[in-house]
């Protein structure tokens, strides 16, 4: 029973870290209409930054400053935001789908770097022994799991509240105005490039934080974690939950991560061992088909975007 409960804690903890990435993507895509195909790249930047800052010194990779975990998470957000600022500065002034291609290219190149810049990243073997939060509780799995879940929930909760305020603020309204009709919004004196770049950088920082938290909860990272399937998972979470809606992003993260984990367990149980690798491929086919089906049948997701008005107006009812 405790086994099940601590598994549930771990499951929810991981789902919430995905939720953070989905929240970041929702700010970029849901509010600003920016199409980012490089979620995995930003998560990788965050994960490696956090690992360098918090892990103990090791010969196999750079960094190892053994600093406190919160510092690692802040560094992760700054690093991912900085990469996003560079990518965004080049592409945000061009047509919308160039951003898709560029972020895709950035993610592929970053993954290559993680794989091949061995002295920095540890190469294909990645970085192990990344300290976990509340390691002193590790002897009692349930307390350890609950403490980690509480931490993940607190961070996600803060991000959620902040994003809810942001999207209702004048800043959020400008973003949506630019998404709906750029010409009209810029004729009112709003600079499209600046607002978009801000949204892009904040969203990428959340993806970096998500990568950092996963690195810390698993205690191990490797380049194989940051392949396009990760980007795709986060997209499916947002689209299934309902883009434009922060609650939808979180709900989608829990639902899709649940289906993904469950189907993984089911395939391991059902398939003979020499078919396991192929079974993993089948899972991606299924989730790809599911995304296409949701886009066709229910383009607004489980909970779609709601009309968002200023909180001052809402308060006056």
């Amino acid at each position, binding site marked *: 029973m405790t086994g099940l409960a601590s598994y549930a804690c771990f499951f929810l903890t991981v789902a919430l870290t995905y939720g953070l990435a989905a929240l970041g993507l929702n700010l970029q895509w849901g509010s600003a*209409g920016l*199409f980012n*195909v490089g979620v995995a790249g930003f998560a990788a930047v965050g994960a490696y930054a956090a690992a360098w800052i918090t892990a103990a010194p090791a010969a196999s990779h750079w960094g190892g400053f053994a600093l406190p975990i919160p510092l690692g998470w802040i560094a992760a957000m700054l690093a991912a935001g900085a990469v996003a600022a560079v990518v965004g500065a*080049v*592409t945000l002034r*061009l*047509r*919308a*789908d*160039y951003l*898709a*291609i*560029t972020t*895709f*290219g*950035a993610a*592929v*190149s970053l993954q*290559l*770097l993680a*794989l*091949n810049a061995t002295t920095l990243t540890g190469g294909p073997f990645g970085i192990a022994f990344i300290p976990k939060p509340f390691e002193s509780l590790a002897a009692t799995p349930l307390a350890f799991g609950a403490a980690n879940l509480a931490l993940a929930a607190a961070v996600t909760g803060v991000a959620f509240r902040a994003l809810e305020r942001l999207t209702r603020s004048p800043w959020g309204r400008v973003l949506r105005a630019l998404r709906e009709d750029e010409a009209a919004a810029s004729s009112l004196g709003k600079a499209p490039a600046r607002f978009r770049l801000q949204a892009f950088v904040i969203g990428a920082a959340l993806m970096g934080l998500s990568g950092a938290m996963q690195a810390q909860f698993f205690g191990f990272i490797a380049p194989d974690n940051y392949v*396009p*399937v990760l*980007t*795709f998972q986060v*997209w*499916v979470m947002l*689209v299934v939950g309902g883009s434009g809606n922060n609650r939808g992003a979180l709900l989608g993260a829990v639902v899709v991560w649940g289906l993904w984990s469950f189907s993984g367990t089911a395939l391991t149980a059902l398939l003979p061992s020499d078919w396991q*690798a*192929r*079974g993993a*491929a*089948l*899972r*991606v*086919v299924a*989730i*790809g*088909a599911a*995304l*296409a089906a949701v*886009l*066709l049948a229910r*383009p607004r997701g489980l909970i779609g975007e709601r009309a968002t008005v200023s909180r001052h107006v809402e308060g006056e009812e």
Partner: protein
Amino acid sequence: MMGQILVDGVTSGAMIGLGAIGLTLTYGLLRFANFAHGEFVTWGAYLALVVAGAFGGAAPIDPLTFGWPLLAALAAGMALTAGLALGLDAVLFRRLRRHGNAIVLVIASFGASLALRSALEFAFGPEPYYYSHDIAMTLRLAPGMRATADQLVVLGVALALMAAMHILMTRTPLGRAMRAVSENPDLARLAGIDTSRVLRATWLIGGALAAAAGVFLGVTVQLRPSMGFELLLPLFAAAILGGIGSVPGAMVGGLVIGIAESAAVPLAGAQYRAAVAFVVMLVMLLVRPRGLFGGRA
């Protein structure tokens, strides 16, 4: 050294160019970046493998490593992949186009790309396949320039396909209609052009050329489920370099990317090959986002 870089770069550049033609055409006509285009390359190569297997072994044509069955398989692979492209459009993209938002199409194509690739991985497994296990002997073209007979034939066929494509676009009514739809779909429709027929032709041509690139890649390198996906970034780079919608641009862009990649190998190492296309593309977006041959920025 320089000569060898050129030979290798032009061969892989011709394949990138072939793949990029379809990408730039669908991009120009339908106005969305199709992330599933790389999978047409992979599917073409694997479909040809299946067809070639059905023909059974025939003696290779000396000094090549393959015989006539592979040429028949190339034709069959191109036809089948053209059908696949058309089918994907009918099942997915055409329906989503009705909803309007072009970016939703990009998400869908990203999903379709992963699903198509994983389906192949499920069917064939992750290990590489070869059309032939014969060893390709290299021929000495000039001092310091070597190429296999396979490479030369592949290059010849690729260039012939490109020339045919150029004639199609510039000299035939279909080519003129395609350019008209790419320029202005509404005006083209008003001028009496059947746009849905033009779109079907575009998918067929794009799928067939991508399949040819896949077979050529399989002949000169190997077949892997990720081969087309790894080609996707060079394909986009070539299309952007040449200017979106421009067929000659895609061919020239492909050659530039191929040569740049092969020139970068001695400098940065083969493992960073894929990042070269990205860097060339970034520079192009900064300096001349419209591409070499005009197009729309």
